Structure formats: C-alpha cells, structure tokens
C-alpha cells in the first residue's frame, strides 16, 4: 500500500497538468499574443471603435453637400416611384469658398413617410467619396415638434463590421456609397436620421478651412414599412 501511494499522487499530478494544459490551450492556440493590457483595453466601453478602425484612402471631400436618397435594391423595395431625398438639417461645409455651419432647429422637418417593403432601408449617400464616419438613428415615434420619443442611440455604420446594424457598402468602385440600415421588426412609421463626415486631407488649403478636419452633414428620412 505504501509503495502504491506515490504512483497515485503522480497520476493525480499528471491528470492535473493535463487539465491545466487543456484549460490553457484555447487562448494560447488562438491568440498567443493577447496581453493583459489588451484584454483590459478591450473591456472599456466604446462608441464606434469596438472593432479595429476601418481606414480609408484619403481623397478630397465632396465639393458640394451630398443629397442622400432612399432607393430600392436587393435589400428593400420602395413602393412608390419617387425615391425620397433626405431633408438637410445640419451642414458644416465649405461651399464656394465660404464656410457654412447650420444646425437643426425645432420643429424637426421630417418628410412624409414613403412606403417600403423589406427588413432593411437602403440610402444612396449621393457621393462616391468614402465617408470617414456615419451615424444613423432609428425612431418609431415623434412628438408635435418632431422630437423623437424616446431618444435612440446612434448606430455607427461600418464598412465591414456587422455588429452595429448599419453598413456602408457599394457593389463597384466609382458607384455612390450606400447605407444599409436594419429596420425594427415592428411595422409602421419609422423615422431615420443620418449624419455623415468626410475627412479633409492634411494639405487641404488652411485658408479655406482653418481648424477644420472634416465636413459634416445630417439628414432626416421617414418611411412606412407596414
């Protein structure tokens, strides 16, 4: 009996070491370079940088404020012939060499809803220049002043990430960029706001846009997906 006990202990130790290796295996094999610092960093609350930043090639911003429009495509069908143009509510842009800054005022000027079919809303951004940042918000009710009730957080639209419910995409180079937004499951009137930002290159004439690093604009849309 005494001579068998050490074997038992060694067996137990080997089983434990085996279990230890098994527990460690998933992290060491899948991502051996993850450090404690990176883990801590990932756990911070973030807005639109949950994934690594999506970098785009620098190009000059659109010369004029884009005019986005709801369109039909494979994701949805607009049930009327006229595509809805976004109602411009905010502009921070250089137009004809002059800086133009305008913010939204009440009552918010929502357009009349147009009927669409589908689980997604597709908006043609009206430009082939890649935006550096797009936020969309979806509301189901507004008050007499057009203020959304309840408020809704921003969906940060991404080129590749599928996590936000909003995608920036296009089928071919040279085409206008499209924004595809996942719609709420509840049918009925839905109000959608969109803000886009286009970066200014480092060599953009500083006398034209001193202290500016981007152009911004925002629009309102309304649909009925009942």
């Amino acid at each position, binding site marked *: 009996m005494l001579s068998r006990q050490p074997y038992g202990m060694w067996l137990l130790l080997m089983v434990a070491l085996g279990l230890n290796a098994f527990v460690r295996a998933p992290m060491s094999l899948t991502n051996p370079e993850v450090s404690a610092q990176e883990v801590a960093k990932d756990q911070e609350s973030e807005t639109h940088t949950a994934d690594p930043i999506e970098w785009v090639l620098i190009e000059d911003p659109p010369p004029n404020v884009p005019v986005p429009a709801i369109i039909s495509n494979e994701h949805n069908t607009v049930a009327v012939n006229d595509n809805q143009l976004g109602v411009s509510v905010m502009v921070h842009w250089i137009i004809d060499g002059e800086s133009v800054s305008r913010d939204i005022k009440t009552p918010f000027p929502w357009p009349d809803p147009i009927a669409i079919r589908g689980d997604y809303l597709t908006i043609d951004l009206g430009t082939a220049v890649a935006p*550096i940042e797009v936020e969309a918000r979806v509301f189901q009710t507004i008050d007499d002043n057009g203020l959304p009730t309840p408020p809704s957080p921003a969906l940060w639209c991404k080129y590749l*990430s599928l996590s936000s419910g909003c995608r920036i995409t296009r089928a071919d180079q040279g085409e206008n960029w499209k924004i595809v937004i996942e719609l709420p499951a509840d049918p009925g009137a839905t109000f959608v706001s969109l803000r886009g930002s286009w970066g200014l290159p480092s060599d953009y004439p500083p006398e034209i846009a001193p202290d*500016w690093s981007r152009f911004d604009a925002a629009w309102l849309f309304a649909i009925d997906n009942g």
Partner: protein
Amino acid sequence: MRSFTLSCTALILIMLLSNAAPSDARKKNHRPNFPQEVAMDDSSVISDTAHEFTASQDCRGDVCAAQVQVVFMPFGCEGTSDNPHKSRFAEDRGRWEITGKSQTKCEQMIKRVTAANQLYRNHLVYWGAEGTPGFKSKQDSKYVEAVAVTACNNDLYLVAATHTLNGYNNKQYFGASGKSAAVTC
C-alpha cells in the same frame, strides 16, 4: 505522507483555479478570424510595413475589404479616443470645461501622423460638434495627441477624432475613432 498528499492536492487546485479566470476573460474578448491588416488590392502591398496581406483574407457577409477599400492598421497605426472628462475651472470664463483627447500611434515612424478631434453633444437626431477642436500633426513621427475642449453643461458628450496617416510610400489614410460618456461638473 498525508501532509505531502494534501500539499500536492492544494497545489493542483491552485494551478487549476489560477488558469480558469484568465481563460474566461480572453475567450470573451477573442475575435475570430479578424485580420490585422488588409491590402487595398492584390497589387498594392504596403511596402513599409512588416506585414503583407491579400484582400481575400477579410470578408464579412457578402462584402470584402478590397471591395469597400478598407485597410486595417496601415503602417501598424491605430487611432484611439479617451472618454471625455471634466478638466478644469476656467476662471476667465467662469465655467467648468470638458476635455477630450485622441491619439494616433504607429509601430514605426511615418512621413506624417495627424490627430484632429472635436467634442460633440447629443442633438437627439445626431451628434453635433461644439467647442474648440484639437489638432496635432508631426512629420517623421509615430505618435501625436489632439486635445479638444468645450464648456461643461452636464450632458452626454462624444469625443470624435479624425486620424490621418501619410506614409513614406505616398499612401494616405483616414480613420475615425470616438468615445462617449456622461460628464457632470
């Protein structure tokens, strides 16, 4: 012998327990199949980075990186923004101010690295810019930090940054980062 057995058992238990927690934490943060960098197309490998990637390496759903012309970590660079926070009481203006910091940092020196940022407030249907923007740009460098400032109105604030990279190979990239938080003063 009994004490030796107990010691061994305790040691084994400690080893098992000490490895369980980090494993869970890392599993939670594991991003399967996410690339560190993707070239613009098969012919445009970024010459002054240590990595070479092909566009086929990253597709999400029906869209691939090359199709939308997106690059991850060009020149080993990343952009970050910190939470907006109460900074100081401005005596001359009689108000508390909020600061937002954003950084552009690269693993190696590049031709020009830039960070520009701004504080935004929630305007119900979009984030609206306000206050004084931050801007920092350096030639032949790998790190800059921009600092934006605005008045504190006890609200939800967003720090949004435009990061710009100019490489020695004449490739230039834009990136955006942002972080929001409620700030009371």
